[in-house]
């Protein structure tokens, strides 16, 4: 499912602004971009898009707009970055993408969210807050969360709060991870329940965030994880987090963790013990 309407709008705008093909500057050109796209190589595409950072050409807009639908995130990301350098085009496309947040299918919504996030289109935050509540596939919801993470804006917190309760673990994990990237974030209290999540990756990310934000209410569950979680990454992150919390009550749990079977955990637990008050 392609975001065709958005691409057409972009091409129409660039034609209206009357800037034709160009080949100067760093040597970028529409031809090189086309060749890179035809090669199918992510690295070649990124290299040519970056080279065309400031290149003004209608044909380039058409080509790069097509990449906003690419299946590969890295390609969509660099295409959005390219548009972010072209403010009028970016604004026009953002308007279309905001519409697609409300009505697009999973892939369209994913692509829209990735564009809006990468271009830091803060005016899309209300639409993102609505979109996270739609019946969409996990791919779209992860992209919505990723957009909020890239913006880092406090008005994206409701998106994350909704995503924390999603049925899909990949969405919950993405939301947990994004939580600490919100500028000025002070609390991890909403993350603490995720320390008991059935998914190990969610627990591991939650432990990191609880530790990073020194959320003291997570201590007891972190001690449970560090001593009995089946996942070594979760145990490691819990040990690190308990060191950040620094409460003497964690001494017993961390002492047990110093003889953990995993090399990921032992030294982390020892160092955490040294951090306790």
């Amino acid at each position, binding site marked *: 499912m392609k975001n065709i309407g958005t691409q057409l709008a972009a091409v129409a705008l660039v034609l209206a602004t009357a800037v034709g093909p160009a080949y100067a500057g760093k040597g970028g050109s529409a031809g090189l971009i086309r060749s890179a796209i035809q090669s199918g190589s992510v*690295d070649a595409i990124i290299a040519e898009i970056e080279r065309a950072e400031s290149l003004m050409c209608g044909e380039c807009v058409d080509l790069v707009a097509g990449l906003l639908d690419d299946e590969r995130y890295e390609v969509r990301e660099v295409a959005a970055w390219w548009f972010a350098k072209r403010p009028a085009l970016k604004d026009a496309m953002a308007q279309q993408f905001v519409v697609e947040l409300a009505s697009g299918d999973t892939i369209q919504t994913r692509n829209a969210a990735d564009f809006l996030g990468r271009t830091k289109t803060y005016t899309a935050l*209300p639409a993102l807050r609505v979109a996270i509540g739609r019946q969409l596939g996990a791919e779209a919801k992860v992209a919505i969360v990723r957009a909020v993470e890239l913006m880092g804006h406090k008005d994206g917190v409701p998106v994350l709060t909704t995503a924390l309760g999603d049925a899909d673990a990949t969405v919950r994990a993405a939301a947990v991870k994004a939580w600490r990237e919100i500028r000025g974030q002070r609390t991890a209290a909403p993350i603490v329940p995720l320390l008991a999540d059935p998914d190990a990756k969610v627990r591991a990310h939650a432990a990191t965030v609880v530790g990073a934000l020194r959320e003291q209410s997570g201590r007891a569950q972190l001690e449970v994880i560090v001593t009995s979680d089946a996942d070594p990454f979760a145990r490691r992150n819990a040990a690190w987090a308990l060191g950040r919390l620094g409460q003497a009550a964690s001494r017993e749990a961390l002492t047990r963790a110093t003889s953990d079977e995993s090399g990921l955990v032992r030294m982390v637990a020892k160092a955490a013990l040294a951090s306790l008050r």
Partner: protein
Amino acid sequence: MKHHLKSLAIGTALVTATTSVGCSGDDSSTGPLGDVDALIILQRPKRNDGGDIFTYTSYLPGARLVKLEPPTADGVKTTLCCDQAGAEFANIDISGYDISFDAKQIVFSGKLAADQTYGLFLLTIDTGEVVQIPTDPGRDYTSPIFLPGDKIMFTTSSVVEEGAPQHRDEYERRVTLQLGRINLDGTGEELGPRNLSHRTFPTLTSDGRVMFTNWDHIGPMNAGHLLFVDQDMQNLREAFGKEGTGASNSTLKPREIAPGRFVGIATSRDRTLQAGALIDIRLGEVATDDKGNVVANRRMSEATASYRDLTPDVPRGREPSAETVGRYYDAFPLNAKDKPDLLVSWADGPVESGVLGAAGLAANFGVYLYDTERQQRRPILDDPEMWDVFPRPLKTRSAPPITGSAVDTSLGGKTLIGAMNVYQSTLKEFEPGSIWGVRVTEGFSSEEGFPEMFGSTMFEGMATLGVAKVRADGSWLATVPANVPVRVQAVDTFGMSLFSEPVWFSGRPGESRVCGGCHEDRAASQVIDPGITDAAAFGPDDLKGSVPREMRKSDVFTRDAIVGVAWDKAIQPIFDAKCVSCHDGVPGPANPSYTVTDRDGNSITWTFDLRGDRLPAEWAELGGESAFTRSYLSMAGLDMEAVDEGDLMITGDYKVYLNPEDARSSIAIKLLNPVQQWPTQDPSVRAFPTTPHMQGRGTDLTPDEFYALILAADNGVSFFARENNPGDQSYTD
């Protein structure tokens, strides 16, 4: 095309294989590797996604650390890590490592899965045990090196200022790396003061300092230079690359050959897979000892540094390298001869990410012994499926002295900066008595919520911390926030910059960074009159040293209160009140016009206009950002990179009225003829002997308004500042 390139690669490999025969039969007891029993080599699955020199998140499972014993092409290869370390390590990628001084341990940076970050690990060579060193699991830690005193230095995306976002690099769009260190037992993690962009590839030198690549990005400067820092991350000093002595846009992965002498990679910022030509850098006067070792540690300074190109055919830019020429990923010196022998990682063919990607290929780095005198490579190890990189002799080495400086607790967590005599400079000749003070400006990037561009001029976000007074003897001192990148400008009594230091620097809490002058001769001693400097006697000026980041912005834009020059808030009101009655976009003598024409003959015309309306769409493309206003475009001019890239032609009366970092030469400032700001604001004292523009035309600017306009220019003519940050506004329904 794809098939053809692959054939070429195979053909080259065959040539290499043919020339490699001699190596395995070498008498290794007498050659450059004669005292080396084994090599450690990092093998990473081949890839093509690390084109940019600061890329650190590339991940492909299957990396390993191997030992090659003896260090010859027919040596026995043993995997040291991490096939025996447990299931968690099954999919590890390793990006860098270092061998301990006693050659018993290896510290490495590893990533265990796609959803993990790069962390630090410690391998005990004898037992094969691998343990993770505790670091923030949500942040990357790379390029570890052993320091004396049982410490490890590393680079990390973790941020020293708790709660603040890490700086982002404008160009390659990623969270920047900064320096840090930690005790070998995992305790005592310390994060160093921040650069505005990346710091990467630290290496320990024999005098105990650490050299690393610093990405210098201030306005039009975009380059990776070598810097020194002490092991405690204090005492930052330039080493190589600026002042016209560099060999390329970027110098990276330096390794000490001998005191004052380094081998490094000279290359472009992007597309080169962090590989390039090999250069022999000499920081000071070159001397040869009685053993034939060449050193360069006398009178070391960036201004007098030199280099020798060890691989003349290898491109130092981003262009694809030729067949049989290739590029070098790293080098390790085996001796200090005038033309040293090196262990190198080298790949043949077009080592350029775009060309390789389009051909469906990846560079194939292998390990070679490189004779720089004969410019000959002899293969040691080349697994065609792996990048064989960072070859290092497995042997003990002497630990250098511990370097560091005292921390002044009386500074209360602030950093003290200053100079003994600001008039001492190798970059600018100042008129005696011309400098009133030194303006200190904080830098930040888009991580605080800004769009890609702060303005059309490529400058970063800036917040003026204040002006420290230069005393009678030329000295000045100021306390500034620790860990924050700052830039200094010498300013005159009108508040205009006389010279801008072209770098960001920063200091740790309690660090004293007092220089001899304003970029003084680094190889000379600074002599001051008996006793202390005047600035020390007066005490430092406090330039928001204790003010939290979120408070470092202004509510009013007076001379003493202005911090950021938010165009629409600090400048537009001046234009609205005093300028737009004439400069309203109506073509005429007061509003000159120019036309931009593309190659197809399409054209658009701009007329000078100081109103605050947002730019029309077609001009936003050339002006840099749709939030920018008519007055901004009129004063700052076009995004010249867009003009160059678009091959656009400008005709008519095109002028830039405010020059970045140069208010003094700006047309608008000269026309308006600003008034004295210090020691007191005095409208009767003008900067230039010309008639002020406003005389007979309307109400003159106030001294505060003059200063705001001057600061707009001297801070880079940006549109955005913290005071108008779109990321700080509310976006509720």
